[in-house]
């Protein structure tokens, strides 16, 4: 079983309400307001741990006695007999409003979610001599924020159309509690109640000054704080997309563009960190004309006793022209000739242009692909690429 031996059954109630108030007879009629839906819901969900997480397990090992390999068994997982599901209670409320005969549609949702008994891998002290981590119901995590969608049908004609969609979200994540477990301390991230999950922590660079005006910072010209401090969150706080499209030639040709924007998060610029700290070929080390902030972070990581990576935990706000595409609906006669219903061709180009305050190659370079957390460490950024797609409906 995924759960500890004491686990029984689980109840996960949910209730939701949707009210199209604009359909009510008492609702004032207006040429401006096409529709108004109010909605709210609350409910609980659960996340189960992996199928063997609760179990104390062993694994195989091999040892050679000088003559032959011999099988062995080693201890691999402490398990956790008290493991229970992670539970989340979420409440959300929002509305959907149509204006101007639904030429303008706006959706908005505010939500709050509190996860309790959060499944979190606790780093075990190495002095325990066991596995490096143990899964436990340790955490209470809150996520609150809002989501919105604005859909504009700017022009809706027979021969021409134009539309614009903007959607986005803002989420604030907080680790509320770790129970009786001390903050979980890693080398660059920590789980500390009151701060976001997997926040970056480091000893801060508190100041730097080119005291002798030679344009080069040395260790004595950079100061680092004595204590680890919270630097920033790894996941974006605010995410937005903007998509606009034009249709013409009896709306058989559509040209559209999509822009992504993410803000509020940090990335550890591991690529520049190792170049400054070890390979000594980053700009802050090699270029005497490098800005002082680049020199300061290089000096701090190379020469300060703290070896702090603070200067490489960078704000990663970015805007990217994610896609430009052209879609052409081919004549119906072509579709019928192919025994189909409709046929179209799409030409698309992705990841065309980036605007960012991040000093690394790309804020979406990700060494830790699949974990949900970005880490730039000598990793190729998402490439620009071009596609042609043939769509056949039948």
């Amino acid at each position, binding site marked *: 079983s995924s759960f500890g031996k004491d686990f029984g059954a689980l109840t996960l109630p949910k209730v939701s309400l949707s009210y199209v108030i604009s359909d009510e007879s008492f609702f004032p009629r207006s040429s401006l307001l096409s529709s108004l839906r109010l909605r709210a819901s609350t409910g609980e969900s659960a996340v189960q741990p992996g199928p063997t997480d609760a179990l104390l397990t062993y694994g195989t090992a091999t040892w050679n006695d000088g003559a032959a390999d011999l099988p*062995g068994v080693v201890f691999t997982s402490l398990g956790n007999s008290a493991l229970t599901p992670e539970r989340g209670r979420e409440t959300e409320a929002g509305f959907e409003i149509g204006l101007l005969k639904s030429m303008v549609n706006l959706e908005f949702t505010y939500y709050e979610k509190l996860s309790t008994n959060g499944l979190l891998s606790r780093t075990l*002290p190495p002095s325990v001599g066991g596995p490096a981590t143990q899964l436990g119901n340790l955490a209470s995590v809150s996520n609150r924020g809002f989501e919105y969608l604005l859909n504009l049908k700017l022009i809706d004609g027979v021969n021409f159309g134009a539309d614009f969609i903007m959607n986005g979200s803002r989420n604030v994540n907080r680790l509320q509690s770790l129970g009786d477990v001390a903050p979980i301390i*890693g080398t660059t991230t920590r789980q500390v109640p009151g701060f976001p999950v997997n926040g970056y922590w480091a000893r801060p660079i508190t100041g730097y000054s080119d005291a002798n005006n030679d344009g080069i910072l040395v260790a004595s010209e950079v100061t680092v704080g004595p204590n680890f401090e919270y630097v920033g969150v790894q996941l974006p706080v605010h995410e937005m997309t903007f998509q606009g499209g034009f249709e013409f030639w009896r709306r058989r040709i559509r040209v559209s563009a999509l822009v992504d924007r993410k803000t509020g998060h940090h990335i550890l610029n591991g690529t520049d960190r190792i170049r400054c700290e070890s390979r000594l070929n980053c700009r802050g080390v090699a270029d005497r004309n490098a800005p002082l902030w680049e020199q300061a972070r290089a000096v701090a990581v190379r020469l300060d006793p703290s*070896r702090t990576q603070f200067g490489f935990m960078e704000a990663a706000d970015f805007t990217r022209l994610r896609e430009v595409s052209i879609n052409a609906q081919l004549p119906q006669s072509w579709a019928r000739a192919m025994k189909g219903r409709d046929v179209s061709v799409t030409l698309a180009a992705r990841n065309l242009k980036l605007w960012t305050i991040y000093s690394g190659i790309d804020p979406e370079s990700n060494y830790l692909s699949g974990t949900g957390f970005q880490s730039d460490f000598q990793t190729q950024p998402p490439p620009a690429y071009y596609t042609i797609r043939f769509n056949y409906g039948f």
Partner: protein
Amino acid sequence: MTTTRFLPRRLARLSLAAVAAFGLNACSGETALLDVDAPQVLLPDDITGAAGASALRNGVRSRVFGISSGGENLWLLGGLLADEWRGGDTFVQRQTIDQRVTLEDNSFLFSPYRGSVRVREEAFDAIARIREVNAATASTVTSPIGELFTHSAYALVLLAEHFCSPMPISGYGPGGIEPAAPISRDSVLRLALAYTDSALANRVGPDSAAVRQYASVIRGRILVNLGQFAQAAAAVAGVPTTFTNRTAHSINVGDNQIWALGVSARRYVLGDGEGTNGINFVAANDPRVRFSAAGASFDGSITNGRYPTNYDRFSGVNVASGVEARLIEAEAALNAGDAPGMYTILNTLRATTALYACPSHITGCTVTALPALVDPGTAAGRQDDLMRERAFWMFGTGHRLGDLRRLVRQYGRTATSVYPTGAYVRQAGAQYGTAFVLPIPIEERNNPLYASAVCTNLNP
């Protein structure tokens, strides 16, 4: 306006029934549907009997292998902090250790610490299983137990010689983890000593002699660290010079890491007078530390590096040996004021060419007996000779850092006259730092009994 379609009533009733059936099934506690075989998962109840106990014992042996020449652990990292090795690659974790500025958040520290303690934890698990089997079968064979106690002692002495003191030795049990408060280095050593007592009391069986010799050498090593030289010599007196307890490598268990990270990958470069005070492992041209032709390190920062060649990919390495026993006796003689006795022991070893014979994988190798050492007549000179002999005989086997610490702690040297010091040549303008030991890994701060007593005493 939306439309809603409903299921046909009959289908809806059927659906509800199916849901109800599964729901009732779950509520009734029937779990047959959930019983799944998972042969890849080994549970405690799967490891039973003599076969299970034997497998656990082999598992502990594999752990010892891992903290010795089978992994990048204290043998290599301790030598990197000392003068056996220089860093030759771009990993900052190795570079900061090499430069003696390593911090507790060095990610390379976690595995060695954990790996050493887990030898003890898993050894105790195996000991318990063996005792169960012995009780069930009325067997009197206890030598496996003695071996496991010795492995535990060995793991703790490695910790005591390499890490900051006081250090925690925690554990885990049926109720979960059992965090412990830090204890002094001497307390760790006395705990290890107690394990050797248990080892010597549990050695009935076909390999009784091997267990006795292994436990005796480790016991001697512990006593040397405690400054009890006469007792150390007495502990190892019955160990023949030819005794070895060695790791063994193969395709399945893994490569010799001295070879892999040394001459193969060139991430570790042989030290040669490192930091002014270091031993001249290259210039000495000593058959006990044979080396390759000059070549660039992994990152090219050292262009004329040399790399040890006495081990190849599958060469075993001594964890404990009769040579070490003789060196312990030599040190006891030194501390007893018997310099001639010390030099007799050392020169006997040096004259025994079989102890440093050419490995079969080195073609064209010849052996010439090492010339006899001559007593310089001074205490410092004799200490230097002893420690130099220890450095060459036991190169790369996790002894050197402990010896540097003892030179300061027991022989009154200054740390700046013992450890690599001065300009750190791998980085222009950089200097060696002041680390004399490895710090306790930062992950140990997750131990509530350590978090309030973080080890800051980084003195030898």
